[in-house]
């Protein structure tokens, strides 16, 4: 009961860089545990250097404190590493509605050395504005660690793509 209530509070905290997504949508919440008057939330970063982690920790503490939990601990685990496959289907829909193309399935990890990819993979990323499938990659590194920049020749709009990881 108490566990579920705390989980609901945590689930509603939004990502500071992509506020259309809750932390739950993004798939970074790894556990919520209530023990007496202490709530322990375990989260995982999207990228090693994700600058939003400190803000997320603060936001979680603030939301839980406001909801009446006097002691809040936020722990970070690195393993297993976050994957874009953990973004919920609801999260994918919200991304598309906000003009950010959701990620496709992450590449499975091969057994041998990781192969080079010397030209952009021929993946279809439909334009989140007009739906045209023929979009092109401008840069694999976008304004946040997890997005790439693309352009749609049909509607002539640039857009962000949450790149597969």
């Amino acid at each position, binding site marked *: 009961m108490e566990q579920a209530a705390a989980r609901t509070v945590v689930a509603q905290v939004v990502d500071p860089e992509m506020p259309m997504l809750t932390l739950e949508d993004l798939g970074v919440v790894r556990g919520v545990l209530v023990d007496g008057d202490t709530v322990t939330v375990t989260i995982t970063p999207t990228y*090693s250097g994700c600058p939003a982690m400190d803000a997320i920790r603060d936001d979680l503490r603030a939301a839980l404190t406001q909801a009446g939990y006097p002691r809040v601990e936020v722990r970070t685990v690195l393993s297993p590493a976050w994957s874009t496959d953990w973004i919920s289907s609801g999260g994918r829909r919200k991304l598309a509605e906000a003009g950010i193309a959701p990620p496709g399935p992450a590449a499975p990890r091969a057994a041998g050395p990781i192969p*080079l*990819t*010397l030209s952009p993979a021929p993946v279809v990323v439909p334009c989140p504005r007009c739906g045209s499938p023929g979009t092109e990659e401008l*840069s694999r*590194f*976008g304004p946040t660690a997890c997005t790439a920049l693309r352009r749609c020749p049909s509607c002539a709009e640039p857009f962000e793509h949450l790149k597969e990881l």
Partner: protein
Amino acid sequence: MSRHGTEAGEHDAANAYQSLAETTGHDDPRWAFGTGAEDAAAEITAAVPAGADAADLAAYCQMLGDDALIYSHRLSEWVSNAPELEEDVALANIALDLLGQARVLLARAGHVEGAGRDEDALAYTRTESQFRNVGLAELGDELDFARAIARLLIFSSWRLALLHRLLGSADPVIAAVAGKGVKELTYHRDYAARWTLRLGDGTDESRRRMQAALEAMWPYVEELFRTSEQERRLIEAGVAVDPAGIRSEVDAVLGEVLAKATLTRPDRRPAGTIAGRGGRQGLHTENLGPVLAQLQSMARQHPGATW
């Protein structure tokens, strides 16, 4: 500007700061530099793996962490200086990934060492001879984009091969950093390889400069595959990977990229060691001093400052 206008401006500015404080301030003081984050990762406090010496493990985490920290700082010098905005953003993103890896590795080094030093103490208070990064990480790019690409190609091909094998490290923190790092470095290496192709197989001028950049970096390649004594002992404990053992894999990757880019593999004499000592033993080129002077200036002028 009218007096009224000035007041309105000040009022807006005050509001902006207030709203910043409301969204991020809460009650924790922030360090003026660094992070002060003690709880960066839960795994950091894991026990030292059986058969591994704590001092060796601390040194090894410093090696892997210092490579990332120092190179990250050099990459960040490109912010506002890259030839196009997209490259500015790309190099900054790559720097940020490496900084994230460095933070965890240095926090682990501090914990294992057991002398009360955290990631910030290690980054901001060590002197030059206490850093263990390879020479390649500390060189300057001199705002030559071809040098940036040549170095990133070599560094990311090497680090990716290293981290790929460290996925199986007996140390849970190193294995966790490798798990995230492999994904990140795959992007870094592809970025550098694609630019190497564009510049090498581009105009006469871009080809000439790309080749010159490779020639400038090549003396620092040899050191990447030299095994330190700490690594040698940690290989037996299943913690470390022998850098000498990844040479053929890295050579094959670089060979493939250089051939497709119509570039020639440089034939340069390796940068020397002194009595067998190099970056891993704290012996650095003249390039590290200026990096540390900038990186540590705030922390040294205002020790323990918060805001």
